[in-house]
């Protein structure tokens, strides 16, 4: 079994870290994992994506995930929802968005499982701001775990977060945001 996840964000928001954290959580859960940031030449602020693979066996694939195979999408930056190739997604694909409202284009996708969480507010509440930019790397993963019915464990994600940020208040804030997002996430269809 292999789960392929794509994370959409802007350079600087934490999408790449998010992918790493999710992979690390999978690793802690004794899964085989890959975190693949797709590097472009873009600079801070440009849209980027990162892929995660979580599998029961060693992953031999190195190409980026094939959109028609994806299991779920995590959207840190709501405007990027426009860039999803909805036609290619298989029915039941999960799409999680950081937003208070579901954007119209998502509402149209009847075959997909759409969910939302107000990650921005959560991150802000938890103080996850660096030079004016919200750090969303952990928050949205909390939502994803809820959405996927603990495809990796919350415990593992918290552990991964601690490994990433070290013991201290930063980790605490992140963990709080994970928990809040886990609580607040909801599917809308």
């Amino acid at each position: 079994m292999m789960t392929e996840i794509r994370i959409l964000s802007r350079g600087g928001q934490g999408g790449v870290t998010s992918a790493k954290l999710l992979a690390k959580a999978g690793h802690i859960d004794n899964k085989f994992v890959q975190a693949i940031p797709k590097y472009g030449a873009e600079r801070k602020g440009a849209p980027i994506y990162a892929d995660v693979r979580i599998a029961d066996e060693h992953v031999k694939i190195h190409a980026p995930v094939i959109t028609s195979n994806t299991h779920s999408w995590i959207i840190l930056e709501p405007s990027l929802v426009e860039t999803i190739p909805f036609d290619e997604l298989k029915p039941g694909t999960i799409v999680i968005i950081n937003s208070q409202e579901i954007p119209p284009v998502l509402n149209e996708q009847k075959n997909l499982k759409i969910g939302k969480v107000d990650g921005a507010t959560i991150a802000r509440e938890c103080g996850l701001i660096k030079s004016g930019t919200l750090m969303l790397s952990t928050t949205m993963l909390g939502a994803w775990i809820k959405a996927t019915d603990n495809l990796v464990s919350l415990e593992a994600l918290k552990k991964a977060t601690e490994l990433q940020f070290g013991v201290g208040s930063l980790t605490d804030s992140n963990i709080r945001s994970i928990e809040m997002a886990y609580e607040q996430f909801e599917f809308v269809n």
Partner: protein
Amino acid sequence: MSIKIPQLLNRPDVLLRGNFACAGCGLSIAYRTTISALENPIVVIPACCASVIQSLHPNVTYNVPTLNIAFAAHASAASGISRGKKRRGEKVTTVVWTGDGGTYDIGVSTWSGAAERNEDILHCCYDNGFYSNTGAQRSGATPRGAVTTTTPTGKTEKRKSITRIMMAHDIPYIATASVGYPRDLYTKVKKAAQIEGYRFILIDAPCPTGWNSDPAITRELGRLAVQTGYFPLFEVENGKLTFSRRSERVRDPERRKPLEEYLSKQGRFKQMTSEAIKALSKDLQREWDLLARFE
């Protein structure tokens, strides 16, 4: 000669909007100001952020003829262009546009050779004090004490004095300028354009991404660098140095803003101890003193 904005408003943009630069990028300001000041520029760009912000083939955001070339080949490629265009009887300004890495480090031989041959080239170096394109590694331009990804505990050597090294090459024109003062930059470029031979302009160009600074204060950082004496503005014409008005004004260290005001606004200086700041101050003052010998 002073910049009149209305004259310029209707010039075509040299750097088109919708490019790959980070928000608040100092290099972009430097490029726009410099290249707009020139008639018929042909720009040679080695590897650096400037080779990335032009965006992806087959579209580019530079609106002037541009030759992208290997990191250490800028001044030689420009020599070829400058010679070829003369042969063809076309009047152009051949510009080398490099980062500090291309000028202070890997490309020293190429420009030093071109300077010795006194090739007809305007060499502009936008200086952000490290390799921003590859993720903030140290360069020869990195000041003592600054943190980069290859000097994680702060650089232990002083910043190379590229202007004095240039001066020792006895080229006809050298200037420093800053995105903090685009009018001054523009004026200096205009002046340089009138001179034949190898000319050099060093442009302080804050990099909010790598310096870890607020993009909105790019101009302010440029100004603070001058006002704190961190980055002196001057011109050297045929060996004679003249401090530009804004630097002349802070020649007396007493009249400078405290260096900390400049440093504290940038992540790369965050870890500096007061001792480290003192060492940096000493480097800076020494540079002022050495420059003053050429007045």
